[in-house]
């Protein structure tokens, strides 16, 4: 484990050296909103609650072109799909991921890469990236990472953890890749950061709300939770608008679409949402989730029951609070989790 300090005066040098040989994604203001986006080292923010959208789009963009074909019979391979975007993938470094979002990427990673299946489009981008987290001093009122097994200073899914200290940064490597990466950076000085981190971590965790009890959800059979009466109540006011799924760092559902022109075609995948009736509509005309109730239940069951069952007890919600903040009708996943556990 390597530990470094970046003084406030050296921050710009540090950020600039992140861009050497890599594409830097970091929290920058885009149209008045803080986003994890391609960043100019001059404008990177280190004082923020969290980025507006989650960083999942760095590895799982809203629209991703997967493969394409041409139909020119004169050339070789007409009508044969060839993969797009797997060669010459940008080597990225993500600076300033909050620990909650980093855990979200871990959940997504297990969806896209597991012992049954590997998604090359995710893998090429995810594996080659360096992820530098920025620990949270001031958790926002809507977030609850500690309630779902995380921490504002969590290291899961990160290569390096940073924390703001005296206007500069204290860094510590988490993985071997992170340690190697830190060696080549400018603006850093070696220094002992663990003591500072431990102290700040305790202070930050103390500000977090109490854990949400999920023991009953864990213990119960799926169908017991499935048939609970509270779903109807939640569905009553749900608009099925899908904002929760689009802003969620761990929502990973997509829709494959083919688009063609006179010259060929492209297969792409786009973010989709279980809140939409079209998402679960079968070609036969049958829809296994015909009403709002089934669709709303699916989202919470997936996050709080199915993902924990599949991913060794790790919750599918990482407590970033985006859905809580942005739901137009104030459906609060903490409240639903409590009802499921009753």
């Amino acid at each position, binding site marked *: 484990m390597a530990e470094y300090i970046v003084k406030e005066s050296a921050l710009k040098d540090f950020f600039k050296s992140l861009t050497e040989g890599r594409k830097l994604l970091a929290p920058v203001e885009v149209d008045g909103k803080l986003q994890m986006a391609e960043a100019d080292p001059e404008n990177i923010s280190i004082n923020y609650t969290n980025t507006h959208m989650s960083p999942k789009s760095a590895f799982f963009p809203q629209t991703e*072109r997967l493969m*394409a*074909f*041409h139909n*020119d019979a004169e*050339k070789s391979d007409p009508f044969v799909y*060839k993969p*797009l975007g797997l060669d010459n993938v940008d080597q990225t470094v993500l600076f300033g991921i909050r620990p909650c979002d980093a855990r979200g990427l871990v959940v997504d990673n297990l969806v896209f890469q597991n012992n049954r299946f590997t998604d090359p489009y995710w893998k090429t981008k995810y594996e080659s990236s360096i992820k530098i987290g920025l620990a949270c001093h001031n958790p926002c009122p809507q977030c609850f990472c500690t309630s779902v097994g995380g921490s504002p200073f969590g290291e899961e899914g990160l290569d390096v953890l940073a924390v703001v200290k005296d206007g500069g940064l204290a860094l510590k490597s988490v993985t071997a890749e992170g340690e190697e990466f830190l060696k080549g950076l400018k603006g850093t000085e070696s220094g002992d950061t663990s003591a500072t981190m431990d102290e700040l971590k305790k202070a930050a965790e103390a500000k977090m709300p109490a854990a949400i009890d999920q023991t009953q959800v864990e213990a119960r059979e799926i169908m017991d939770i499935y048939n609970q009466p509270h779903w109807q109540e939640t569905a009553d006011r749900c608009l099925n608008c899908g904002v929760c799924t689009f802003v969620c760092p761990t929502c990973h559902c997509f829709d494959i679409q083919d*688009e*063609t*022109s006179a*010259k*060929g*075609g*492209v297969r792409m995948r786009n973010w989709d949402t279980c809140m939409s009736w079209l998402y679960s509509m079968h070609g036969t005309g049958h829809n296994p989730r015909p009403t709002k109730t089934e669709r709303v239940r699916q989202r919470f069951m997936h996050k709080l029951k199915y993902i924990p069952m599949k991913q060794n007890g790790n919750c599918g919600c990482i407590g970033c609070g985006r859905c809580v903040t942005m739901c137009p009708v104030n459906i609060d996943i903490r409240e639903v989790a409590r009802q499921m556990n009753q």
Partner: protein
Amino acid sequence: MSDFEPKIVAFFCNWCTYGAADLAGVSRLDYPPNFRVVRLPCTGRLNPKYILEAFKRGADGVWVSGCHPGDCHYIAGNYHARRKFVLLHHMLETLGVEPGRLHFSWISSAEAIKFQEVARDVVEKVRACGPNESFRKAELGLAEVA
């Protein structure tokens, strides 16, 4: 672009303008061949999304033509259509579609000469706008596999 030949999608009512085009043809009134005609039972059948779809797929212009007000085969189809056109025309103009790209006319099946005149004018107005580059879908981008 002097050699630019616009592609125009034309929506004609079966009971009037479509007949006018036929009459112009048998009367040997020549008109430019730049439009592809979609025959409708009535302009009231025209869903505005057809017009947008035409542009979206790369049409340089759209021309909608039906019966004179009062002459609708279905009594009031074009009266209803007219209100939709007023709104759509205003919407597209406000959003920045060049006024020369979208045309509406009332041409009865007897008005072959009016058909010829309007057809020529529509093509020239669209030609003056140039190729539709801003109000269409982007190319699929097949360079990598070509």
